């Protein structure tokens, strides 16, 4: 599993990824296909742009009164019989979770099933719990696949998108005893279903993430297609839900806006199969816990230029549309959340370690155009570059990362498309079409010409 010790910069990792041309092309095209599905379904909703604006405004409002809504949420959750915990950072989060588990299974191996949660990835919770003798089973199919391979997810919605059928078949053959060479997705999925049913029935603790937490009701919503969150939670004695503090929304009716945006933006579906509203524990002595995690979010809230990255609803539309993500793969970002939004969130957590990420972008702006909550993603990437350069953290970076980008885009696969090159350019490098002179840093691609000099801007905006 990728750890800080062997962290490979994005440019280098991207170069590794594109060595397998066929796979790179497949990755690129598959994600573009998901992007097109998103476009197609968005166009069937006449009020789509209104919904994006509403989503953005609701989140902006919430962030401006986050302390109020968190306190309201806590009070209501407690009134519902839910235990509420607060964690300042990843370490505290992991220790709280272990504490709850140990209370229920003081000795022996505690069995736990887990549905998708990017927060627990961010906190490296699995490694920690496993080292403490807890059996942690990821139950989302994609996450289970990468867990068996001891890899991190490469995409926040499609965790195993970097793998082909044959890879999954090999992994399942090794771990689940499926037929060697049987690459049929139906067969492989059925094998995982049988294997994981056993785990669901055997587990006493279930962990889920949280898509939206509603201050007004003290409840929260978890969205899945597989049904793994509900199956795990409803069979377990203890439900632990882990969430970043930015997941709060004020009222239940606001879910209407976000549930209309989320799945359409993520996969082009009208809604996820299950949108599960958890509010109170089951009557027969089930325990429900919510862990509210800061881990740098209150710091990001204090950076005016990056604050609104906290609006993110983790749909991954910005990944699917990003020409760099599509051709470099999620693992090259060495962060739990990859892609354009991950490149904004990661430097907030550790500027030095993640200094390469804001450079892993062409600043083409496609991410900002698809974002369902209107985060100005490419502007923020540009602003991070300025901060990092001023801090002396950009590792000869402009040059290096531009070279890497040039490698990614001048890759032979591009030329093989021959007559399709024009269309490819429009799709992947939209800015080239309009800007013939300086494709990387051009007036148009910048967030508008800065009205003040960079030094002035930086002096004003730097967090001391």
């Amino acid at each position, binding site marked *: 599993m990728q750890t800080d010790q062997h962290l490979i910069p994005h440019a280098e990792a991207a170069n590794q990824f594109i060595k397998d041309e066929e796979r790179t092309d497949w990755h690129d095209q*598959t994600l573009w296909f*998901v992007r097109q599905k998103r476009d197609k379904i968005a166009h069937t909703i*006449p*009020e789509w742009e*209104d919904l994006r604006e*509403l989503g953005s*405004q*609701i989140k*902006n*409002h919430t*962030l*401006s009164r*986050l302390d109020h809504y*968190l*306190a309201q949420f806590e009070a209501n959750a407690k009134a519902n019989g839910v235990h509420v915990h*607060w964690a*300042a950072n990843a370490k505290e989060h992991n220790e709280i979770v272990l504490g709850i588990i140990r209370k229920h299974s003081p000795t022996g191996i505690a069995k736990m099933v887990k549905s998708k949660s990017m927060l627990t990835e961010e906190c490296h919770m699995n490694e920690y719990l496993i080292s403490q003798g807890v059996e942690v089973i990821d139950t989302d199919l*994609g996450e289970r*696949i990468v867990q068996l391979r001891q890899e991190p997810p490469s995409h926040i919605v*499609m965790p*195993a998108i970097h793998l082909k*059928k044959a890879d999954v078949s090999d992994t399942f053959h090794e771990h689940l005893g499926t037929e060697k060479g049987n690459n049929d*997705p*139906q067969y*492989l*999925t059925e094998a995982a279903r049988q294997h994981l049913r056993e785990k669901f*029935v055997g587990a006493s603790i279930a962990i889920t993430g949280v898509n939206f937490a509603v201050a*007004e*009701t003290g409840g929260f919503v978890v969205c899945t*297609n*597989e*049904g*793994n969150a*509900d*199956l795990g939670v*409803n*069979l377990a004695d203890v439900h632990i839900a882990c969430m970043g503090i930015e997941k709060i929304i*004020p009222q*239940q*009716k*606001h879910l*209407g*806006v976000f*549930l209309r945006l989320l799945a359409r933006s993520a996969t082009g579906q*009208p*809604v996820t*199969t*299950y*949108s*599960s*509203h958890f*509010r*109170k524990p*089951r009557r*027969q002595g089930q325990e429900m816990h919510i862990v*509210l995690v*800061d881990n740098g979010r*209150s710091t990001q*809230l*204090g950076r005016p230029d990056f604050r609104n990255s906290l609006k993110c609803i983790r749909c991954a539309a910005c990944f699917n549309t990003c020409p760099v993500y599509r051709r470099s793969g999620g693992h090259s970002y060495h962060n739990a959340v990859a892609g354009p939004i991950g490149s904004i969130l990661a430097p907030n957590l550790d500027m030095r370690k993640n200094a390469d990420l804001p450079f892993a972008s062409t600043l083409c702006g496609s991410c900002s155009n698809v974002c369902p909550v209107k985060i100005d993603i490419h502007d923020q990437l540009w602003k991070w570059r300025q901060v990092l350069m001023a801090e002396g953290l950009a590792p000869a970076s402009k040059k290096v990362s531009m070279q890497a980008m040039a490698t990614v885009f001048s890759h032979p696969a591009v030329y093989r498309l021959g007559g399709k090159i024009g269309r490819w350019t429009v799709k992947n490098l939209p800015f080239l079409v309009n800007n013939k002179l300086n494709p990387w840093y051009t007036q148009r691609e910048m967030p508008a010409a800065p009205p003040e000099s960079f030094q002035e801007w930086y002096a004003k905006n730097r967090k001391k």
Partner: protein
Amino acid sequence: MSVRDSILAKIRSNNLTELPLPEIPFFNDGRTDLLARYKTVLTSIGGTPRELAEAETLEDLIREVYPDAERIASSVPLAGIPLVTISDETDKATLEAMDVAILKGEFAVAENAAIWVPEANMLNRALPFISQHLVLLVEKDKLVLNMHEAYEHIDTESLSYGVFIAGPSKTADIEQSLVIGAHGARSLVVVFL
């Protein structure tokens, strides 16, 4: 200071100006063909919409769609079909052996084919997910256009746990190939009554 208080204090120390909270319109497009729209969407996501034919009973329909089902649970009485009794107390082994669960949905949402199923309708919280197949019953006049309208119909006071269910369980995690029947129900039939 507790962790809670220090997090809240840190948030407050940013001294943010409150931004306005918008009103949410209903976005009613004035069309009335909700049932037809519902059926189109449900079919597109792998579910099966049904209405009872002339002289057909719900029992007939269940027997026709699931001829081999042996262990059936239902929240409505079904004449002539032996049912497994499921409650909050039912053990995991019994739940896991269920072939078909027949449950009432409160209302259906035309724009995305979701059906609202609150805990009170589930017999057991795990049943709609652990049963191999799922049948949801909805009254024809309980159709709403979109999610904005849907939330107007949810009784927040009594809400303990409830799920919008849209189609059968599915995954595309293996090379983006769609497979129906991931962990939850392998099929979903929505019967409009």
